[in-house]
């Protein structure tokens, strides 16, 4: 992945960073949903 990243332009690098952050947020929400189910 490191090598591939070196090749891409600044805009794409920024977009990848944002995408990962968004996905992490999604995962966090999914975890919370399970937790809520557990507590029911």
């Amino acid at each position: 992945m490191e090598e591939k990243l070196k090749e891409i332009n600044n805009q794409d690098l920024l977009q990848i960073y944002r995408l990962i952050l968004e996905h992490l947020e999604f995962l966090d929400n999914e975890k919370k949903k399970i937790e809520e189910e557990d507590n029911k």
Partner: protein
Amino acid sequence: MIDELNSKYTEFKNVIDILPVNTKYNRKRKLDCILDEEKNDNERLSIVRQEIENRLSKFNNLKANDKIEELEKQLEKCNIINEWNNYNTAYEKMHLDYYLYQLHRYYKEDLESVNACIKKILDSFKKVEIVLTKEDFDFNNYARDYMEKILSNASNEELKLCFEELYWKNSDIIRTIEINFKSIYLRNEKKINKYYETRHLEFLKNHKDSEISDMRVKLSDEIKALKGNDIYLEFQKFVSGEYSVSDFKEAEILKKRDTYFEENSYTYNNLLDLNKVLNEYNILIKYKYLLSDMKDKLDKKIELKNSKNNALKEINKEETSLKKLNAKRNRKPLFGKKKNDDKWLFEYKKILTDITKNYDEFDKACFNDLVFEKLTQDSTIIEVLRLISSNYLYFVSKTCELDENQSINIINDNFNELKNYVNNNDFTLLNNVALLDEKQMKQLIVDKYNLGRIKLTIDNLLDDNIDRTISDINNLIDYENIINSGLNIDDVAMYLDFKKLLDKDNK
């Protein structure tokens, strides 16, 4: 790579979506799957972050050029030349004009500023080898007692208590001290002049005056050249917000270039030359009110000359009355009661008001005499501006007449800006145009630049448009400086975007 990542995430979401959560076991399985994905994603994020940091590092490693700071320190040393500025009397050289004006302004507002100001004035006298004691403050006992406290290095709290106690006996303590300082200066004026003269002669033993002024020009040019294409400074202007990436869009820059320059006339030197003349013209517009007042003064030379002695005579008379009044109050009466306090205070206030008025008249008369001694109707505008910028009181009083709501801090900034500006020796217009020629100026400038195929118009120079014209030309110069420094504006935009994102993420 973005597509690859997107489809990976979509696939994961689809899988997660169908995983059952009906039992504790199933929920645990789903959670494990999410935690696994989270671990992978955090690893991915750290790799991307590392790549971003690598790209930012070339900016983070930029360093300030030490040479610039060193040259600026040397330039500051050249300020010694202000000490033998022909347009200053010892009063201004000691900065009494500034301090006494501040004292006058603060006296009803803030006691700590008043005390700080008084201490600065005491230091100014000390610097010219005049050490003041409480005995010098002989206009009234309350002012003398307060000065005694200040001279004893009492704390602000002690000074506050002392002031409160004395204030109820005589509310004019600070005004009295102000007048007392003016009187002390006049009594010692010859001695103070001698002090500055001796220092100057001492300097001339090993140097020439021109050495310092030449050095000042050389250092200023060197600093300007180094700053103009310094990549660190240019970059910092973006970081601090002084520059915005959107100000340097290529299409906008080209449009501005075409507005002012014909083909082949667009060069860096032409830009600098135009900028210099526009700034000189702007100074002329900004200080039109002062220049026209100076013209009036020169027109009324006979009427205004020699009023100094009259004011001085009145001052001496009133100072003697003030001292007598104080002595009379302190004398123990042989018979009967001490003179009524109210009557004494009434008389004291009246003399103090008259004396203050006469000192103002005296300051004005001294300034007028200086104008008549140094300037004529043929003096160039730069000579007139140099005289104006050497006299703080004149500058402040005329500026306040124009706009009484203007804050003193802005006036001070403008005064210092003008002083620094006229100390520069590199002028095109201001040192060639006499005070009386200023009317034809617009046409003169436009004709000169049109000849050089620069498309400047009278419209560009109108009072409402001049700021815009200067800002356009400055924008073109800034753009050229950025390019010459080797800074890539797209890279800067990337830096600012990354920085914003990383800072937000770190919060």
